[in-house]
Structures are given as C-alpha cells and as structure tokens.
C-alpha cells in the first residue's frame, strides 16, 4: 500500500446494486476508472469525494484516513459531468470561489484566477457567464475551478462525455497536459475505452460494482485477465476452444501446441488486427509460426474505415472480425491467427499457462 497517493477499499449497497471496490492510485498519477454504464464508477467517485458514505471501508489519501472527514474538508476537488458551474457567477467568480472560502487575499486571488485561466487557455473569458460558454469552454472553467482549491486529489466524472468527438480528442490531450503541469493525483471516470487508453497511466476496469483489473493501458489491452475486460477494451473475436484441433497448423515442429480442453465454458479470444487474410487460393498463408488456420471463411461484410478495412467473416457458423489493409478480392478467404496472440478463458477468466 502506498502511503502517498490514494488507496481505498469501499463497500456500499443500494436497492439492487452492490459496490465492493478496492484499488490504489499512486501520487501524481492519472488513473482512469472505466466500465459500462451502471458499473458503479460514478458512485465510486462520489464515495471518494464524500458526497455519499460507504457502509464500511477505508479511504486513505496521502497517509490520512479521510473516511470520517466531511466533504468540504477533504481537499478533493471534483469536475462534474455537467460541470456544475455556478450560473449566477461569471467565470472569474467561479474560479475565485474556492479561494474566497479559504480567505485568500483579493490580489492573490486575481493573480491565481489569471494563472489558472491561462493554464486552461481561457484568459479572455473572465467576465463571461457560464450560460454564454460552449460545452468545451465550460469544461475548462470547471477544471480551473477545481484546481483553484489546490486539491490533493482531483476527480473527473466523465468530463468529456457531453462534447463532440473532435473536441473530446483535443480536450483529453489538454487534460493530460494540465495534469503533467500540475502533477495532481487524478482519478478520471469515463466509459470511452479509447479515451482511457489515450490518457491514463493506470486503468481501473470496473463491472457490476467490482474492480475487474488494474493495469497500464497496454497490459489491459494485450493481457486482459477476463473475457469481459478483453471485449470491453476494444473489439475481439471469441470462439470455442474445441475448434483448435481442426484448425491448428504447426509447421516448424518444435514449438508444438498442446491442446488441453478444460471443464466449463472454455473459449479463445483474439483481436481483429492479429487476423491474417489470404484471398489467393494458390498462395499459402504468410505465417510460419504455429497458428490456427480457418479455411473457406466467407466474407459477409466489408467496411471501409479509412486507415483499414473492417471485414466480417463467417467460418463454420462462427463470426470473425478481421482488420486488413486491403479489400479481399474473393468471397472465400483463408484466415490465420498466430497461436501466441490467442488468449484462453475459462468461464470468462484468463487461463494462465505455466
């Protein structure tokens, strides 16, 4: 357990929902909580902020247990999904509000407001009312206001969900930049996996009130430890394990593949970008390591995505999604997938091979 940063373990239950989450975030880190709607990610944030109280558990921030600390003394700032800018105050007044509460002298306050506004690139907007700002501008002001309270922890509740796609991409890099400049430990809730992968040091995947996996973006994407995490973080193909004997090709001998079915729902999983397509019957698959080969896969759909084609295929009644740089020229193709790109799951949990 780190003594700097956040470490929490909380239990809470509501009508038909139980939350039981434990995780920690290191000081200065930007961590993302991600999960489908209703997984308890926003509840987790509200528990940490103190807006709701857990039944039991502990929240330790920089070495202090803040479970019993009232909201306003926690020094945890939060940016709400709808930004919650005070409609009766202008931008400068909104940002000055937390400093006013702390009785920061007026000159210092003005200076801070200016500094924060330039940090979020909004210097021209001091006198505007929140109603006169666009969504992206509101978001920046809300962030500046949260920073003005000099929090030990910054919580962001889906801060970009109300904005359009292009602005989202821009603002998320802005948030990352501001995070690097301020170095405040940040917990960021989102349901957008691309956003999480793009900005987080650590990703916390939640489902049904529980933490599924904690790790860096690469770990989560490439080594998901459950089928849920695998399919939630990006696209993937799930097939029954028992198709392997029919499709496995082991050429170089040596690193032969050991087929070992297990009791239960035993499945394999692989990403579309790891699928190799051969549309020329006369040529072999360009793959020399041990791999699975699906002959006579039928192309049922082909979407142009700009930088690649997303191809839907049907092989022995199983749907397979593949990414390719070129459109397949025939309706029947051969697919290959290298064995080391395959993850094995038993009843949704990763099977660890020793």
């Amino acid at each position, binding site marked *: 357990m780190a003594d700097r940063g956040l470490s929490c373990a909380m239990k809470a239950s509501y009508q038909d929902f139980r939350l039981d989450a434990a995780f920690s975030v290191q000081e200065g880190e930007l961590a993302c909580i991600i999960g489908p709607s209703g997984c308890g990610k926003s509840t987790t944030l509200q528990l940490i902020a103190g807006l709701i109280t857990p039944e039991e558990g502990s929240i330790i921030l920089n070495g202090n247990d803040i479970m019993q600390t009232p909201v*306003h003394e926690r020094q945890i700032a*939060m940016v*709400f999904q709808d930004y919650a800018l005070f409609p009766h105050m202008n931008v400068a007044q909104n940002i000055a*509000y937390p400093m006013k509460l702390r009785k920061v002298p007026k000159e210092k306050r003005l200076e801070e407001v200016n500094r924060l506004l330039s940090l979020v690139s909004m210097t021209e907007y001091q006198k505007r009312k929140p109603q006169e700002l666009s969504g992206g501008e509101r978001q920046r002001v809300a962030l500046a206001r*949260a920073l003005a309270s000099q929090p030990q922890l910054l919580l962001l509740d889906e801060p970009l969900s109300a904005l359009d796609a292009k602005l989202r991409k821009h603002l998320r890099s802005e948030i990352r930049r501001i995070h690097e400049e301020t170095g405040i430990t940040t917990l960021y809730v989102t349901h957008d996996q691309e956003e999480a992968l793009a900005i987080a040091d650590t990703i916390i995947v939640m489902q049904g009130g529980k933490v599924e996996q904690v790790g860096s973006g690469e770990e989560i994407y490439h080594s998901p430890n459950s089928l849920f995490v695998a399919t939630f973080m990006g696209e993937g193909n799930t097939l029954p394990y028992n198709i392997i004997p029919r499709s496995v090709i082991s050429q170089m001998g040596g690193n032969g593949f050991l087929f070992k079915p297990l009791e239960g729902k035993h499945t394999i999983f692989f990403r579309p970008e790891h699928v190799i397509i051969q549309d020329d019957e006369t040529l072999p698959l360009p793959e020399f390591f041990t791999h699975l080969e699906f002959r006579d896969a039928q192309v049922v759909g082909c979407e142009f995505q700009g930088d690649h084609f997303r191809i839907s295929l049907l092989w022995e009644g199983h749907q397979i999604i593949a990414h390719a740089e070129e459109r397949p020229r025939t309706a029947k193709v051969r697919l290959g997938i290298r064995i080391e790109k395959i993850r094995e799951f038993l009843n949704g949990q990763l099977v660890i091979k020793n």
Partner: protein
Amino acid sequence: MKQQDGGQYKGFYKAMPAPGAAVLLLLFLVPLFFTLSTAFLSEEGFTLSRVQQTFTSAYTIRILLFTLYQAALSTLASVVVALPGAYLLANYSFRGKRFIRALTTVPFVIPSILVVLGFVIFFGNNGFLNQFLMKTFSLEKPPIQILYSFKAIILAHTFFNFPIIMNLVSSYWEHMDMHCEMAAWTLGARKGKTFRTITLPRLLPSIISASTLVFLFCYNSFAIILVLGGGPQFTTMEVEIYRLARTSMDSGAAASLSLFSILVTSFLLIWYNKSQKMLARSEAYTTSTKRLDKRPATVAGKVLALLYSLATSLFILGPIASIVVRSFMASTTRSGAESFSFRWYRQLFAIERGTGHMGSALQALTNSLAIATIVALITVPIALTMATAIRKKGFASSSLELFGMLPMTVSSVIIGLGYYIISNRIRGGVSIGYTLVVLAHMVIAIPFVLRTILPEYRKMPLSYAQSSLTLGAGPLRTFFLIEVPLLKGAMITGGMFAFALSMGEINATLTLANSAIVTLPVVMYRLIGSYNFQGACALGSVLILVCSIVFIVSELAKGESNGR
C-alpha cells in the same frame, strides 16, 4: 421552393386566427378607447387638464404610494412565510407532501370574494379562530381583532398569495440539480455557506419572478381591499377607480386614474416579463437530474416539518372550511345563538322566501352559471384559433401573442370601467347589461385560456401536422382530425379555467353592472356588506363546489394529456 412552415397553406394559417383576433380587438380596444376618450374629453372638447391634474395631484400620488406600499409589504410577508415551505417541499419527501402541494395550487383558482369571505369568517372578531382561542383559553374578548384594518389587508394578501410563491419556488427548487451544491462542498464550502452563496442565489430568479407575480396580484387587488380595508384611508388604485366611477359618479376622473394605473402596471409587467426571461435563462442551464428524496433527519426537523404542514393546511383550508361550516348555521333567535340549519340553502334555492339580498340568490346562481358557460364556450375557440398562428416563430406571431396577452396589462376593474362607460352611452336594458358582463369576462378570460393552450400547442411537434398533410388531408381537416384531438386536454383545462374565472369574477362585474344585474359574487358582496355572513357562506359554498369540480376536471384533463 421556399421551405417555410405553412408553405402553400400559408393563407389558411393566416386566416385561422383572424376572427378570434378581431373579436378580441373589438372587445378589448373599444372599451379602452371609450375609457381614454372619457379621460381626454370634457363638455368643451379635448382637454389635457383632467389627465394632467390626476397625474400630478398629491391625492393620486398618495394612493399610488399606498398601493405600492401594501403590495410590497404583502409580497415580503408572503415570501417570508413561503420560503420555509418551499424548502420543505423541494428537499424532503414526507407523508402528506402531495396534499400540501395540491393545496398550494388552490389560490390559483379561488375567487377573491371567497378569500374575503373566508378571511372574515375565520379571522373575524366572531370568527372560528377567535371562538376557538376564547374557548381554549377562556378569554372574555376575542384575542385577534384585525378586521377592517391595514393588518387585515396584509394578512389576507399573505394568506392568499404565499402558496403561490411556495408552489412556484418549490417546483423550481425541486428540479434544480444538486451538482452545484456538491461542487461547492468539494471545493471546501460548509452546508450553511453553500446555501448562502450557491443555493440562494440560484433560487433568486424564481423568487423574484414569483414575488413579482404576487406583487402584481396585490397591486391589482380589489375585493380584499374593498371589503377588508373598510374605509377611504386604505384605498388602492383599483378601489379608487371603482369608487370614483360608481360612488362619486365621476367617470372622467376614474378614466384618467385608469390611464395612470395602466402606465404603472405596464412598468410592472415589463419587469415581470424580464424576470420571467431571467428565469427561463437560468432554467435552460439547469438539468433535471432527479434529486435524492430524503426524510427530515432530526426530531426537531420532523416536528418543524409537521408544524409547518399543519399551519399551511390550517391557513389555506381553515377559511374555506369555515365558509362551508358557517353556511349550515343560522341564529334561531334575535340574540344570535347559532345552530345547524338549512335555512340559507332553502332561501338560496327559493324553497323559502329569501330575506334581503338572499331574494336574488337563485337568480344570481343561474345567471353566473349561464354567463360562465357562454364565456367558456366562446373563449376556447378564440384562443385555439389564435394559438394556431402564435405557436409559429416569427415577428407576426410574436406580435399576435403580445396582443393576446394585452388584456392582462389592464386590470379587470379598468375593463369593467370601459364597459360601464359604454353602457352609459347606449342605455340598454338588462339584457344589454348581461351581454356586457359576458363580453368583459371574455376579455379577462382569453389571455388565461391562451396561456393554457399555447404551451401544449407548442409542445406538439410540427411533424404531426406535416405528416397529415403529406397523407392527403387538407389543412382544415388536419386541424380538426389531428391537432384539435391532441389539444383536447388543454382545451378542457382552458375552458374550465375560463368558467371558474367568470364564476368568481367580481372586479369588472361590480364596476360595470347596475343593481339590476346580479351574479353570484356580486350578491355575495352585497350579503357581506349587509352583514348576512351565513347567507354569503351558502353562496360561497356553492362557488367552492363549482371551483372544486373545475379544479378536479382540469387536473384529470392534465393527467390525461400527460399520460399520452
């Protein structure tokens, strides 16, 4: 091709509101024209002196100041009484909350003559409250002696108006999301500080808007001042216009005072409009996230909530209930001991010969029912056809909307005065008199009906009518087959509103009608004036019954249209 709403059917949509608008124009502007011409004309022809004198005299200024003063004080008292209730309704769920909420809508439909009567019966020297206090604490004299004084005016206005503020502010408050408050907490503000710096300022637009409405009501208050003020020292603009026209028989002075009053009211209305816009702006920013329902936590909180709810119910229901109770009482002997009796109802329904003004009670009841029915049946189509044009965007429709709301700028006493001046010119019989009453009630009712139908009409997507047109129905059939059925609920509510308004209308009726013309409120007023309170209560109970039916039917119609 131009992509415009209406498109090729523009002519139809232009023609639709014309008859209604023409009728309203005639009904509203003609009497206003007569009023103004009376103000500017004397035997020698056009003159400014009368208006000039009215506008500058110390007497007018004194009346104006008193009117503003009593309105301000009443509004302030209403706000102070209403805010705790608004807090309770908006933030907590408790047993009886729905009942209290329903109660707060009562003042929107209750006629002012009932307020006056209930007030006298409940708070009067011999009223139920005093009787109760005297019995409980065995007092010799009634402890509350406020009737016919300035205090009575303020108290009656507060009793009448605080539920309005409670209703409007609490519904705004309830839909205000808690995120701003939560944000303030996370930024380091305590609960008290958060309330002062965040919640209260956010509520302010709704408080200002509701107070302005109440201020307008108190400014235009007529029956309450007339009866409870009890003398020339407590006269307001409205009462003075009535007094000048009908007691001093000086129509010219009344007309020029009306002109003055219209100017003041216009300022108030501009301010009200501004506050409404402010409210709309702040509401646009408020998201409607459901707030957490919670119950009062501490014992003290629970007791306070209970006490406040009880007091509210007592203040709203007490006077109304006492009207009903009192209507079944009559003194058997001259000395005045009262016992249960159907006497007033027997007199009302002419089973027994009526004493005094009770003689005209049945006539008044049938008159009022007939007038109200006619008013409701005519105003709904007028408002509906006008709404077809107003709901569209654009300059023409917004000016039409403004025109439709115009009668609101002129108080009903002034409308009554206009018709009174007309009736003096044409000198018709009783039937002409009743016709004028109907016309005056229509002018008063149209803006309200319009305000009921218009929002529902605007909520209806334009695509309904458009798809009907593409399916082959002409604009007229589209109107009758699609739009009218969809607006049924709003039309019923609007019609009921007009009916209730007409049933309880006294300001214009009293100002314009001569003694031969009787309506329910007028007879009630006369009964109160001759101290036959029980008789007035019997009529009042009938009025309460009618208003309750109207209230229930319109609530049902509302529920139906919401359920769609």
